[in-house]
């Protein structure tokens, strides 16, 4: 049994990283996620587990420090918020191309541009469709609680190393800043040198005479080989789509109307379906836990059962496109969401369901 704590989401990420045996964190301050690096710097894990914590000169440098350490087989992570994640996209694309595992936390704030520092889910497209240049995806986990912030660190690394791919935890300013009780996982020791060489035989750990040199690169000037590499990546993404979909169904069994919402919006939708049922409206919630891979099949199944779907997102309507691609019949699929850092209330969400789906 782990340890019960009361923590901010951002702090929980820091504590969970230490406990997950993470080797290094490289970051750069940006609101609303600076508590991650502040927590780690205060905890000084370099004196206990040996975890490196370093404040880089920019988000660009931080993600490239992650690249270097990940390329050498280390468990390494970074975090930022929307404008900073845009800066990291170069490195994320390179890591996807070079097939390097890492965990990247995005505590999303409103945009575009410098936007605002309040919660938002406006980086959905960027997270699930690739984000940087080239044909690639990252696995995207969407925590809806401080507990999931903590749990997804170890889970993220497990997926990252299994598939040799960057994993993004797509959180938002609400989940990052709010305090909740959280059961912290037990300590897992950092990998030893032998374990790294066994678990990441592709890594640049120094070439012994017994093997060929390891090369970490995303470059291949030969188009034929580059296409083979693209096909290899696509095969990997297919496998991820087949095996790694995670979601939660809440009151879906008898639902006539369905909310689909992730992260903080899912928390609001959870209250909204209770308000709906108080009024006699049989509403349910499907909460995608992985946004990539997207829970397409269950949405298709539920679309045969319900009369309409409302996608509740803190943005102008992004995930709703993936829902529309998933539904198997001609039912109404609409979006509702506030923007600019404003969070919709459960009452607003229910009103939107009544206006856009039930009455619409």
């Amino acid at each position, binding site marked *: 049994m782990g340890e019960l704590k009361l923590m901010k989401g951002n702090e929980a990420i820091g504590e969970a990283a230490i406990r997950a045996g993470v080797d290094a964190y490289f970051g750069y301050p940006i609101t609303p996620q600076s508590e991650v690096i502040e927590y780690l710097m205060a905890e000084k894990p370099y004196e206990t587990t040996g975890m490196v914590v370093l404040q880089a000169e920019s988000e660009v440098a931080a993600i490239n420090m992650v690249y270097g350490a*990940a390329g050498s087989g280390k468990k390494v992570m970074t975090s930022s918020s929307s404008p900073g994640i845009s800066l990291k996209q170069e490195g994320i694309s390179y890591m996807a191309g070079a097939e390097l595992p890492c965990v990247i936390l995005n505590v999303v704030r409103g945009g575009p541009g410098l936007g605002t520092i309040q919660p938002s889910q406006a980086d959905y497209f960027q997270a699930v469709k690739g984000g940087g240049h080239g044909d690639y995806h990252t696995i995207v986990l969407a925590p809806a609680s401080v507990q999931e912030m903590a749990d997804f660190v170890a889970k993220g690394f497990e997926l990252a190393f299994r598939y040799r791919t960057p994993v993004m935890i797509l959180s938002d300013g609400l989940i990052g800043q709010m305090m909740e009780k959280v059961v912290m996982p037990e300590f897992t020791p950092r990998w030893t040198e032998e374990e790294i060489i066994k678990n990441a035989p592709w890594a640049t750990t120094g070439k012994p005479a017994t093997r060929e040199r390891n*090369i970490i690169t995303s470059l291949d000037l030969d188009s034929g080989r580059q296409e083979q590499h693209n096909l290899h990546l696509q095969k990997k993404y297919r496998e991820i789509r087949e095996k790694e979909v995670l979601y939660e169904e809440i009151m879906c069994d008898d639902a006539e109307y369905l909310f689909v919402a992730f992260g903080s919006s899912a928390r609001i939708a959870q209250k909204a379906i209770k308000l709906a049922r108080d009024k006699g409206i049989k509403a349910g919630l499907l909460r995608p836990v992985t946004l990539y891979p997207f829970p397409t099949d269950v949405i298709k199944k539920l679309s045969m059962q319900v009369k309409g779907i409302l996608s509740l997102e803190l943005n102008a309507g992004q995930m709703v496109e993936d829902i529309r691609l998933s539904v198997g019949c001609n039912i109404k699929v609409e979006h509702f969401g506030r923007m600019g850092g404003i969070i919709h209330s459960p009452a607003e969400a229910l009103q939107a369901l009544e206006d856009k789906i039930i009455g619409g």
Partner: protein
Amino acid sequence: MNKEILSDIISEENLVYRKTPLMTNNILSYCPGCGHGTTHRVIMEVIEELGLAEKTIGIAPVGCSVLAYDFMNVDMQQAAHGRAPALATGIKRTWPDRIVFTYQGDGDLAAIGTAETIHACNRGENIVIVFVNNGIYGMTGGQMAPTTLPGMKSSTSPYGRDVHIMGNPLKITELIAELPGTRFVTRQAVHTPGNVRKTKRAIRKAFENQLNFKEGLNFVEVVSNCNSGWKMTAVQANKWMEENMFPFYPLGDIKVDGELLNK
């Protein structure tokens, strides 16, 4: 040539020079006369002679030496343009007992990667940076570099670099020598046997420093030619380099054991 004579020439007892096994047998992608190949060889010889091959991780940049990992027979990573010092930081911080070096050109190190260069130097990362400065973007076809000399022609300064419009060449090596995080800063060349020997001594010192100290960045600039980018023969390019590049980028040690020389 007669096969018998040839086999006599290459027989073990007659060999006066041998390629380090830390250079692969891949054919170099560099233009004939270019200094990259020699610089690669010198680095790899030093790593071999110091017995560091199994501990070394190298980082290739974007530029002509983007494929350095095809030629250097050690574990290698290829960095995004300018980011090699950040990769090196990530590796060295998490593998402090490994030997880490970056190999970067002028566009990579002194333009797009200026922030990464300065901050890695300023943090005193215990790594070696080898900086090949030929005053031009070779790989993309001869565009102006941050180190292109005033008046020097390139494909994006076809009438010569006008410093009032295009800015001045950046002496980044002098700049980073001022930072407390650098231990050893030197500028060398590889266009003559004498210079190759000096460069090798400098690179050896840089790697020895990395072995012997816990912090302090070791920075070796190699002023080199780009005969194809400069639109010259190799011989002309070396002469032009001596007459034009060396006065602007004077050769020699700039900082030794953390102390600036000629202060």
